Structures are given as structure tokens and as C-alpha cells.
């Protein structure tokens, strides 16, 4: 079993996310993809620009994956997130989870995407067909309390 978290400007090959995840004791593997849609909040979207604090984002993804392992009996997990300019239909994130039984793979995958959206230092700006663009209102990450 091995885990892999990557934040990259290169296009994501979805099948590559599964590489190395599945071992002989696993009976299930699922692949989640986030893709760029052409609308949001009633506005027509033409493309997205992602920024990432890549070294911290990768470290955060590894933390989230470690939490998933603590909560569920899973095999290998990989998370790949892209940054830079993405067009409609492009894959922004791929999450692959293998596990001995299917329930754990579904739950761990859901946990990872939800936590990623709350905590990973990654940002997206929507470019609208009207020519305007806006950074999305995001989640405020919770820093450690004042010591």
C-alpha cells in the first residue's frame, strides 16, 4: 500500500491516479474526478484559473489522507490536484482510494474531497463568458488558536 499526493500544473491522467493504489487484499477501488463546469451561481463560466501554494497543499493533502487511514480501513490512496488555467471539462482533481470492502473506499473518498475544499491552500478564479473574472468566496481555514 502506498499513498501519493501531488499538486501539479500538468493535465491529470485520471487512470494514473489508480497506479499503485490497489494491492492483493483490496476488493474495491474508486476514482473521484472533479471537473470544470460551464456554469456557477447562474453565470456562464468560460474557464478557471487555479493558484496553489503547492508545497503546503501537498503536505495538507498528506495530512488529510493520514486522517482517512485512521478513520477507515483502506488500501492505497492518491490525490492529484491541478493548478493553472483549466478549460471547461478539464479535470481539476482526482482522488483514488482502494480498500478491502467498498464502503470504506466511498466514505474515505468523500472525506478527502470535503476536507480538501476546506483546508488545502488552493484557490480558483472563475472567468466568465462576459469577460469578467472573480475569485470564489472560499472557506476560511481554521488556524491553531492563539498561544
Amino acid at each position, binding site marked *: 500500500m502506498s499513498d501519493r499526493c501531488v499538486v501539479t500544473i500538468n493535465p491529470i491522467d485520471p487512470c494514473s491516479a489508480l497506479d499503485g493504489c490497489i494491492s492483493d487484499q483490496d476488493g474495491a477501488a474508486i476514482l473521484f474526478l*472533479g471537473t470544470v463546469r460551464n456554469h456557477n451561481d447562474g453565470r456562464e463560466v468560460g474557464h478557471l484559473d487555479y493558484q496553489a501554494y503547492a508545497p*503546503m*497543499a501537498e503536505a495538507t493533502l498528506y495530512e488529510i489522507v493520514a486522517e482517512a487511514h485512521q478513520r477507515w480501513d483502506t488500501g492505497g490512496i492518491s490525490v492529484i490536484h491541478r493548478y493553472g488555467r483549466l478549460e471547461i471539462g478539464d479535470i481539476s482533481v482526482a482522488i483514488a482510494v482502494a480498500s478491502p470492502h467498498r464502503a470504506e473506499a466511498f466514505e474515505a473518498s468523500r472525506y478527502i474531497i470535503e476536507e480538501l*475544499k476546506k483546508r*488545502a*491552500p488552493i484557490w480558483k478564479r472563475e472567468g466568465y463568458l462576459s469577460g469578467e473574472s472573480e*475569485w470564489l468566496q472560499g472557506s476560511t481555514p481554521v*488556524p491553531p488558536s*492563539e*498561544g
Partner: protein
Amino acid sequence: MEIRTLFFATYRDIAGAEELLVTLPAGASVRDLVHELRARGTAWQAFPTDPAAAVNLNYAPLSTPLAAGDEVAFIPPVSGG
């Protein structure tokens, strides 16, 4: 001491730069860094007084003392996925 300071998304738009090298007195905290930046002119008034910050890749409170060579990143609300 000099602190490499990184900006992303809306904060990068305010700073007009991906990163700045900011000179601070020894013993300064992340909060002191915020004060120094916000004193740089009217554009900086849009920069929050209490942004989330990371020191050397870990989220850290504004009270965190800084040392020469530290890397500070200010983290606006995140929207990955």
C-alpha cells in the same frame, strides 16, 4: 531580519506581487508583519488585520514569533476542488 512573504489569490491582487522580502526587527511576530504591510499605503487597507497565515508550511497564529529565513504565506479563504 528579512522575511520571505508569499501572497495568493485576492491577497496577491492587493500586494501586486507573488512574494515580497520584508525587513522586520528581531523578535517581530506575524502580526507585526501584517502591521508593516498595512502601513504601506491605501491599497493595503484592503488587506485584513487578521488573515490566516502559515509559517514554514504550517498554519500558525498571528502571535507566532518570526526568525530570519522564515517563509510566511498569507492564506485567503480557500476554494480548491
